[in-house]
């Protein structure tokens, strides 16, 4: 077991070390997310009741765009410097290493979004229960967004125009998470049962965690050939 997890843990730690050396790179999506969430109330007046209706969509779309920004260069540097070849030739299974990399990126760029969500929810006028549902939804949904984005980054790593290809490829795959995440908050705000959309988010998460690292590893193998 240790022989499998040791290499994945090494890659996870390396991603954190790289982020510590280049703070601007991982801070950019967070700043972007903050700007989106902060400017919305200014755009439609802070007291406007419509803000409460839009709040879940604002936070979720902000998280989606931040995830897109974060994943674009996920494998580019490794392809350019040859590390990707070493990852694919290592003894540890490539999907496990890919999952470790996705996990590190989630920790760095998505977990802060989840932690900031209660504050943003309250700022956008949400009541305490919808704020809790929003935060729980993001906790379940952001790994799905990150793993989906990471898969698309693996598919487009060797492509010339990955910057435009990636969002086109990934948006339809990320949409269900945004729909169910936003839907749960709306249901909680209206006093309706909100468990079902959260279960759907959990199911999407299970699919993403188990399937996408395998698919991404296959895509990376194609990229180095």
């Amino acid at each position, binding site marked *: 077991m240790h*022989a499998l997890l*040791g*290499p994945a*843990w*090494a*890659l996870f730690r*390396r991603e954190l*070390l*790289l982020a510590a*050396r*280049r703070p601007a790179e991982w801070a950019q999506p967070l700043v972007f997310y903050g700007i989106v969430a902060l400017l919305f109330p200014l755009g439609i007046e802070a007291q406007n009741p419509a803000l409460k209706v839009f709040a879940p969509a604002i936070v979720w779309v902000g998280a989606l765009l931040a995830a897109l920004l974060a994943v674009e260069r996920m494998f580019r*540097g490794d392809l*350019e*410097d*040859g*590390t990707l*070849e*070493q*990852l*694919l*030739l*290592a*003894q*540890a299974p490539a999907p496990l*290493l890919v999952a470790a990399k996705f996990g590190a990126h989630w920790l760095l760029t998505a977990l802060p979004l989840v932690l900031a969500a209660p504050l943003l929810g309250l700022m956008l006028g949400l009541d305490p229960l919808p704020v809790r549902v929003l935060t729980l939804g993001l906790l379940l949904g952001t790994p799905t967004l990150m793993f989906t984005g990471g898969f698309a980054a693996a598919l487009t790593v060797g492509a010339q125009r990955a910057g435009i290809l990636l969002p086109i490829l990934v948006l339809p795959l990320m949409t269900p998470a945004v729909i169910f995440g936003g839907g749960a908050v709306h249901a909680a705000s209206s006093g309706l049962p909100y468990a079902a959309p959260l279960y759907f988010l959990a199911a999407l998460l299970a699919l993403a965690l188990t399937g996408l690292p395998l698919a991404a590893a296959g895509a990376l193998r194609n990229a*180095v*050939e």
Partner: protein
Amino acid sequence: MPDSPASVLRVHALAVARGDRRVLSDLSFTLAPGEILHIRGGNGAGKTSLLEVLCGLRAPAAGRIEGQPTAAQRHWLGHKNALNPVLTVRENLVFWCALNGNGAAEVDAALARVGLKAQRHRPCGALSVGQRRRAALARLCAVSRPWWFLDEPLAGLDRAAVHVLADLLHAHARVGGAAVLTSHQALPDALACGVRELELGR
């Protein structure tokens, strides 16, 4: 000394393709423990593609390979050095050892062996081309494996580093290791002794 001796590598009627272009076909050879094979050929002759097929990075278009080494038995040194420019030389090597489930006990000795002890705490992005190549070669000393696949290992190396590589290769062969290396030109005298040559494109 390699942890386990290299087995015999047998290549039968191998064909190698790059995209939809077949770069090599009907290639057969055998490589035994203790042998060093130099694959020589001009630009585009298929040296790198062949090496990638031999170590398992690329699937062959036809033919078969017997005795292909596993991940734990082979070193791969591509024409890219696999060194992150932001991390120091030592951090890069320690990470690589951990990635392959090996301890980092030999890293400092390996860096000293390739003449990079003084640079070990410098970011790889601040090193010269030759120094980065030396850092990549240090992996050969840090973890002992019976099979070495080296793509253009001489690129960027000065005379002293070529001698270090020659010493490493010959010491590796003496203890039963095997190596395949590519280059587009004849090997320097220090390296060429006892090396078998396979010329592509003839």
